[in-house]
């Protein structure tokens, strides 16, 4: 380990420029978040399109609340979200319990199986599900109908519960991550006591473990609810063609209407209501988080709770996990691959086998537009996390290290993009970019995408870095300060090396998010700012199902090694970060 010598600065300047820089960066980030949120409210009070004169009015709210379609969409969204939660949270809980609380064999493999689910874009899996469980073309349905001689398909993905199910399956790994963290920190003494008194494993699970992790479960439920409300991927891929419209797809059509001009005002009113709902939902979320500490008694590193012995039940555990992996990952990808080989979508048959070819794959190699989209994706995967790490470091430093009066407010503002549906930020930045396009010609460029990604994921970065910075004892910093070392140098030479795992974890996670993102990109994409996700979406939405499938397979094949390497490294860094506590 190299030893670094911090030089002592004898002449202290009157103005601490480094602190001012940090404040400026944090202030800029906070201002950006507030501006975009303010833009949503402002939009809601105006009519017409950006640049058109408009008086302030409440007409949009009246139109929205007076339209029966609004209630239809909201009901659909709530049912969709309820099914998403009903699928993802119980599955996440079961997998977390198996992995954290039992002696299930090969836990590392199990964790990897669940992690892989997080790595691949949701919309690709949704495409696969159409080919698996659609009532008329779904391979599983066709197989079941042939097997049991049924006249109607037994399963139907093209329904509100159907798309909720797919969204739930794709969010299960996230639910697992949230719940498993709570299980790891759970007080095992009560479970041990129950075991000593001969209480059955199931009774212990239901009566002791479940109540103990209830706050974490509740937090996961609220979190899944906000994600489901904003989700565009699954409702867009499966719902839109089947007349199912949720909040996100309804807003998409308000901005991209098939009749007349975009209704920014109406979507702003919709957005403002959703911001309100999301912020209200955060109250029970925070209460649950606060209460969760009551239940956590980490007994020190030396304490290892006795895992529940599964016996032969380990087969059931692995059976469930295997079935999940097969349904959520393997089968959708196989379905996409199959479609990519055909001249048009057909169920597997001898006739279909006779016409398969790799023609689409040879065409992809010469598609310059696709290469452009790939380049933009890589650019975002590098620049977005880098900017986020810089801005979040500044915010977290102020929140955790300074004695500024407004640091709590700054932390709250940095958290705001977390509960607010991200597509609303995309909507706001699209409006803003159009409005100022004469002065700042950024409309339609990759920079708009970059800006909105940074704003939306600042909340994630600051959560991770706040936790990392809080663990660094002030003594080190104070010692350097006494020696007259500038704030910049303290940050770079003392704090950054100590929080390096957190920084790398934040960088990798946001980089992967930039790779997966469709919801915001689809609202902002233009010919110059196409990314892989919007390129595939364009093919799919334009009727090129086979082309979309082929590009998806190539995207997965090319990006998988990179993404997996990223992920393994991120998990290591996360482990390093958490072991520092």
């Amino acid at each position, binding site marked *: 380990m190299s030893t670094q010598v911090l030089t002592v600065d004898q002449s202290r300047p009157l103005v601490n420029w480094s602190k001012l820089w940090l404040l400026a960066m944090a202030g800029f980030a906070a201002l950006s978040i507030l501006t975009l949120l303010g833009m949503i409210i402002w939009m809601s009070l105006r009519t017409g399109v950006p640049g058109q004169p408009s008086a302030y009015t409440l007409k949009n709210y009246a139109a929205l609340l007076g339209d*029966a379609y609004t209630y239809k969409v909201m009901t659909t969204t709530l049912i969709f979200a309820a099914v998403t939660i009903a699928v993802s949270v119980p599955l996440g809980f079961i997998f977390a319990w198996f992995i954290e609380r039992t002696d299930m064999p090969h836990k590392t493999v199990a964790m990897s199986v669940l992690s892989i689910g997080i790595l691949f874009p949701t919309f690709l899996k949704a495409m696969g599900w159409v080919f698996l469980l659609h009532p008329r073309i779904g391979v599983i349905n066709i197989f079941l109908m042939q097997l049991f001689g049924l006249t109607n398909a037994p399963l139907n993905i093209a329904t509100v519960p159907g798309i909720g199910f797919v969204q739930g399956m794709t969010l299960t790994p996230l639910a697992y991550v949230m719940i498993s963290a709570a299980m790891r920190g759970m007080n095992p003494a009560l479970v041990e006591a129950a075991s000593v008194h001969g209480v059955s494993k199931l009774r212990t699970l239901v009566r002791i473990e479940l109540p103990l992790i209830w706050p974490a479960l509740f937090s996961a439920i609220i979190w899944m609810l906000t994600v489901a409300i904003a989700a565009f991927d699954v409702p867009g891929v499966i719902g839109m063609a089947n007349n199912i419209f949720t909040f996100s797809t309804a807003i998409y059509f308000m901005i991209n209407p098939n*009749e007349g*001009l975009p209704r920014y005002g109406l979507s702003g009113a919709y957005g403002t209501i959703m911001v309100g709902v999301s912020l209200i939902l955060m109250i029970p979320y925070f209460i649950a988080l606060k209460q969760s500490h009551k239940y956590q008694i980490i007994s020190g590193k030396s304490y290892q709770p006795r895992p529940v012995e599964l016996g032969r039940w380990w087969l059931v555990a692995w059976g469930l996990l295997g079935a999940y992996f097969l349904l959520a990952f393997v089968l959708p990808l196989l379905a996409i691959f199959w479609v990519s080989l055909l001249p048009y979508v057909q169920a597997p048959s001898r006739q279909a086998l006779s016409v398969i070819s790799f023609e689409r794959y040879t065409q992809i190699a010469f598609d310059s537009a696709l290469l452009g989209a790939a380049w933009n994706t890589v650019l975002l995967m590098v620049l977005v996390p880098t900017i986020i790490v810089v801005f979040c470091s500044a915010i977290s430093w102020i929140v955790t290290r300074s004695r500024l009066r407004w640091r709590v407010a700054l932390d709250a503002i940095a958290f705001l993009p977390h509960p607010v549906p991200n597509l609303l930020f995309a909507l706001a930045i699209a409006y803003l970019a159009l409005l100022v396009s004469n002065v700042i010609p950024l409309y339609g460029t990759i920079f708009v995408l970059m800006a909105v990604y940074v704003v939306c994921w600042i909340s994630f970065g600051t959560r991770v870095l706040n936790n990392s910075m809080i663990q660094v004892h002030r003594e080190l910093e104070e010692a350097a300060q006494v020696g007259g070392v500038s704030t910049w140098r303290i940050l770079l030479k003392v704090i950054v090396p100590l929080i390096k795992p957190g920084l790398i974890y934040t960088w990798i996670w946001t980089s992967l998010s930039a790779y997966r993102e469709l919801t915001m990109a689809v609202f902002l994409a233009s*010919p110059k700012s196409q990314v892989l996700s919007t390129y595939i979406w364009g093919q799919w*939405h334009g009727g090129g199902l086979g082309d979309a499938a082929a590009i998806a397979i190539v995207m997965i094949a090319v990006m998988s090694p990179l993404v997996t390497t990223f992920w393994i490294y991120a998990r290591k860094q996360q482990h390093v970060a958490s072991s520092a506590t």
Partner: protein
Amino acid sequence: MLYMMIVCVVFLHALFSTTSAHAQKLEQIIAEAKKEGEVTLVASASTFGGKKGFAELENHFAKRYGFKARLNLTGGPSFPQVAARIITEQKAGAKSSTDLYLGSDGTYVTMHQEKALQMVNWSAIFPWVTKEMEIFPQESVLVYASFHGIIYNSNSIPKDKAPKSYEDLIDPALSPTWAGKMAIPAYIHWLVRVSPIWGREKVLAFARKLAPLVGGRLRQGEEERIVSGEFPVMASTGGALEAMWKWQTKSAPLVGLPGSTPATMSYYQLAVPKNSVHPNMAKLLIALMVTRDGQSVLEKHDMRSSHLIDGTLMAKYVKANNLKLQDPKELNEVFQKADSSLDEELTKILLK
């Protein structure tokens, strides 16, 4: 005498200057286009044969105009959605996302009314463009004409139970086959088109009976979802016959037929938005699309073509069947005079 000489000089000057201005104008356009170097069309990803078609168009472009340029296609939203985007961008003072606009008569009326398109004297600049091709004079050029009609999957719907007209779609004897599974277009222009033939009340009554049978909505270009059997029938699409011709060459089970008598038409046009980033390249590409070379690319990949260009599939079809097509200018009037309450009512019934 002097007066006569002055008149002659002025006349000759005007004559030559006009002729040279036109010739020069094409040269000027080419010179400016060379500087621009590329052009982008935002439309459905399968437009003009998609990637393959655009690669072929690049070759034809180089051959005709004497320089190589990049012709880009970006898969984007539907025709009306792109039109809405162009108008929004224009009102905001921003550059257009697309250098040229492809759409049918319904959306072109909106573009025309919003004065969103550049005035280009197409037939004066490009010798192969006729006045008749300029559907909105000096604004848009007809690139292909299509019959509006029904498409269905012949594996999902047997011939004896298949619809033969729009009215059959709501026939209680036939409709159980596609009840709850039928796709309709994501827009209501197709019904506005038949309103002069049926009248407002019949259109509304038809829409009310159709609504409970609808299972989904598709945009033009999504015929593969009918071919696959995801939806057994699509109530209407612009280019039903062409879709059938195109997919039947791949042995796909798709049948297309006109939905009404007389058949309603869609006239697909190209024009340059006022806020186009590469307007000169756009003009050259538009003119290329109405040459025999451009049409051959359209025919090869989409089976689509213009009836106004000799030797094309559509011209031959119209001639062979002795068809009298709807006058595009009359159709424009239908949309210009369209009763907005009918649009609203249809949207409420079918799309909400």
